[in-house]
């Protein structure tokens, strides 16, 4: 058998990449496909409950619809700023990329704050879950005190679906913060956690939910210290895919949950 010697300076030859793009992007698409099945299951559960329950509540007054519309505008605008961040990174304009990413994060935080306000209003009116802390004076007043007892499917599916989406938006903001600011984002994240934790009353679910930010800060710290790197255009594009997905899911939650359960007088 003849020996074959390969020269050391021969360029490496690889198979063509799957789907003509890089692995990180394919990985993110696969994750998003699996995540869309999670949201699909939650949306189907909500729709199933709605079909099978004749006295389905319609708790969303005009004020809630206006609030949810502003939230939608925030998310749509954040998608525009995200796509501009991806473009800026492709052009190699680091400053513009960072600014657009920060604008996207600001829109995302606006969405979460408005959503939190909406949740707090509904909880104050008696729409709650058994796992939520008891509100002072909840048994006496509130428009939806009986809803949780007569139609428990509504609060369970509503809080489950919108809570899962809110968690995704929150983690998306953290993800973009890490890509935009890297290690500098960790103290900002810790301040956000303290503000969210100490700024909400102890009977609010957000008082405990704020700890998601602490967990995120710990995970991000480990990742950033173990594998520090400068995020390039491919990382920004992959982060953008995640962010647009969060926007995409809301395009189904908004009409199905809010507009179809509106009480317009």
């Amino acid at each position, binding site marked *: 058998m003849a020996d074959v010697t390969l020269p050391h300076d021969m360029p490496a030859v690889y198979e063509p990449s799957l789907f003509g793009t890089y692995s990180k992007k394919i990985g993110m698409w696969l994750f998003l496909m699996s995540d869309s099945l999670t949201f699909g299951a939650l949306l189907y559960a909500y729709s199933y409950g709605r079909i099978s329950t004749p006295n389905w509540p319609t708790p969303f007054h005009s004020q809630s619809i206006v609030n949810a519309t502003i939230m939608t505008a925030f998310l*749509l*605008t954040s998608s525009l700023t995200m796509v501009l961040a991806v473009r800026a990174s*492709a052009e190699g304009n680091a400053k513009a990329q960072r600014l657009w990413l920060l604008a996207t994060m600001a829109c995302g935080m606006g969405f979460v704050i408005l959503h939190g306000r909406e949740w707090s209003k509904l909880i104050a009116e008696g729409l709650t879950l058994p796992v939520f802390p008891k509100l002072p004076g909840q048994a006496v007043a509130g428009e939806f005190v009986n809803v949780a007892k007569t139609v428990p499917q509504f609060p369970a599916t509503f809080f489950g679906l919108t809570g899962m989406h809110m968690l995704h938006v929150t983690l998306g903001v953290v993800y973009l913060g890490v890509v935009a600011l890297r290690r500098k984002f960790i103290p900002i994240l810790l301040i956000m956690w303290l503000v969210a934790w100490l700024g909400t009353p102890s009977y609010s679910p957000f008082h405990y939910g704020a700890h998601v930010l602490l967990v995120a800060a710990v995970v991000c710290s480990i990742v950033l210290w173990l594998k520090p790197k400068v995020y390039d255009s491919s990382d920004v594009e992959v982060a953008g895919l995640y962010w647009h997905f969060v926007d995409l899911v809301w395009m*189904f939650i908004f009409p199905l949950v809010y507009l179809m359960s509106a009480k317009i007088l």
Partner: protein
Amino acid sequence: MEAFQQAIAEQVAEQQLHHGKAQFFWVWGALLAMTAIEVYLTYQNLQPVRMLTILMGLSFVKAALIIGYFMHMKYEISQMKWLTMCALVACLALMMIFFPDALRILSLGVK
């Protein structure tokens, strides 16, 4: 391998620069306009089934715009477009198998 991936990523980034910035603003405007139509219809108190049909139709158009333009799926190779989207739609459509059961509960009058 890292360098190979980097080369593909740079190629993809370069391709993105060929698409005009204006189209993103058009898509954003269209998405906002469709949202405004949805909210307007809510205030018209339409029949639930009709309302649901229109809202879901608009939602699918919005989803297609986001996936196509913002997520750049329009510019991916057809193999990726068809394989991912068909697999996803098929999986989501399979979940509809539960809906007849929800209607059955309604007709049985289960409380």
